[in-house]
């Protein structure tokens, strides 16, 4: 041990700065959130399971769905629309929804780990653990979407609505994914353990993904299902991303998606943060 040979005078702040003004509070919350975000991004890189989940899996979905269903799906599509063009914007939404189940698992694992106890005994922002996690997921979402676009381009996908349309499509999906992350954080704070979070996540996400316009147009569904799917925020998000990518009515689904996301985020963020503060 080198404990005896320390420099005699060791400057060490005795009191972490207490936020003195509302502006300072916001600043520290943002900084704490960023610190936790960096931590979670490192986690992605160091967990093979997550790397596979966020890279290979979406790529596989793009390729498999395009080739397996491409043949029959084109029948239901408007004249001249290739299935890959229809599919890829939908898959952005699908992969964002699936990924959010990993948000729940990651948070549930964190709660089982001792490190959150340390966070909670420190004078840091209470919301930072959740805000940092969802922000890291947002960063990852954007990276995965870019990856999916690259793979899509290799097998024939093309944006036709210009750069702004493409960016709009990506942003709509990112916003939707951000909402899903917060919803699943909130869910993870209510179930016991990571496995429960995983199961609950899939039970919710799977039907939601298929009961939407992600894979096929609603007109091909039975009436009762189409009626349900038409109300789904996943349908709005997929329709918006699709219209912004390859043309069609974009404004209405985009506004609906934004309304859903902003409305639910305004509810779920305070609920999740409050829940995080109270659970032990």
């Amino acid at each position: 041990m080198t404990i005896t040979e320390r420099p005699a005078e060791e400057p060490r702040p005795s009191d972490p700065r207490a936020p003195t003004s509302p502006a300072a509070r916001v600043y520290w919350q943002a900084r704490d959130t960023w610190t936790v975000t960096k931590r979670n991004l490192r986690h992605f890189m160091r967990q093979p399971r997550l790397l596979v989940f966020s890279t290979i899996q979406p790529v596989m979905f793009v390729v498999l769905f395009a080739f397996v269903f491409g043949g029959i799906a084109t029948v239901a599509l408007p004249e001249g629309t290739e299935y890959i063009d229809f599919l890829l914007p939908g898959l952005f939404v699908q992969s964002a929804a699936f990924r959010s189940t990993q948000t729940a698992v990651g948070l549930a694992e964190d709660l089982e780990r001792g490190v959150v106890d340390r966070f909670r005994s420190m004078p840091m922002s209470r919301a930072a653990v959740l805000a940092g996690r969802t922000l890291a997921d947002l960063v990852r979402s954007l990276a995965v979407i870019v990856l999916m676009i690259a793979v899509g381009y290799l097998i024939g996908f093309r944006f036709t609505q210009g750069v702004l349309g493409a960016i709009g499509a990506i942003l709509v999906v990112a916003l939707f994914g951000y909402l899903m992350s917060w919803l699943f954080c909130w869910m993870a704070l209510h179930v016991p353990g990571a496995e429960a979070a995983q199961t609950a996540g899939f039970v919710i996400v799977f039907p939601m993904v298929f009961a939407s316009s992600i894979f096929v147009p609603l007109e091909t569904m039975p009436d009762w299902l189409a009626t349900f799917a038409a109300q789904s925020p996943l349908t709005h998000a997929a329709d918006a991303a699709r219209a912004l990518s390859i043309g069609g009515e974009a404004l209405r689904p985009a506004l609906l998606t934004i309304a859903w996301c902003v409305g639910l985020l305004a509810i779920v963020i305070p609920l999740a943060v409050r829940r995080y503060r109270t659970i032990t």
Partner: protein
Amino acid sequence: MPDAPAVVVDDVQKRFGDTVALSGVDLAVAEGEVLGLLGPNGAGKTTLVRVLVTLLRPDTGSARIFGHDVVTEASTVRRLIGLTGQYAAVDELLTGRENLRMFGELFHLSRREAARRADDLLERFDLAVAGDRPARTYSGGMRRRLDLASSLLIRPRLLFLDEPTTGLDPRSRSAIWDITRELVAEGTTLLLTTQYLEEADQLADRIAVIDHGHIIAEGTGDDLKDEIGGQVVDIVLTDAAQRPAACRAVPDADLGQGDRNLRVSVPAGDALQALSRVSLALRDAEIRVRDVGLRRPTLDDVFLQLTGGDPSATSPPEGTASGTEEGVA
């Protein structure tokens, strides 16, 4: 409030379902003091620490850290304390250095300051070489050191150590003890829980014994030893076969832990007389002894008597301590 005691616990109760973890704890720790909280498994040590570091709300009662209530002024309390919990609270996927930098930034040090503190602490805690390996790959002792380092990025006025050396080998344990002593010398107030009496005796100014969720004794190690009675004459025979004969020669002897041990409790103020009486009786009976001596009860004796149930007030403490000493002899 510079003059408020470091810790004041007032009738704190906490139950988990049917389990009463804390059943009315009262405790005070002065600034600069080292309090050892000693108790067996399940006594409520961790629960009490978690209440004091704002991780658990007490059901009833209140606790104050330097005058600040742990429930209503939790964020102020968090600024004053450091915690090294029973289970290492470090991020397994991050390296030691990344852990310390992260905690430093979360303590609101600047990035540069956090990085510098991280390097210093790695050096000080003998982790410099392992600093860039994920904490997942650390041994138990390294993990504990990293955990302790993580609570020292800022200078806490009050540090909680929950069983800091459980499961460590003697070398790692004494390393933790050395660091702890340094912190105390720098003026940090310390609340330390332990199951090891030796640890409490070595490090603490004052010991509180907790069992079944409340404090059953409090004082210095010497106070506690006095509390359960005076000295004993401790006899170690050369030959275990002579024990029955020895018992006949010294009728008031009790059997000690090992098969060659005997013990005689000594009435207050009568130590030398008892020692010579016992020695003469053994010599007259031609019993060979390896060792006869006066000794005070160890903290182990205190601990077992206080927490163990039935030892009567007068009988000498029986415990594992004598067994341990025999092992050394």
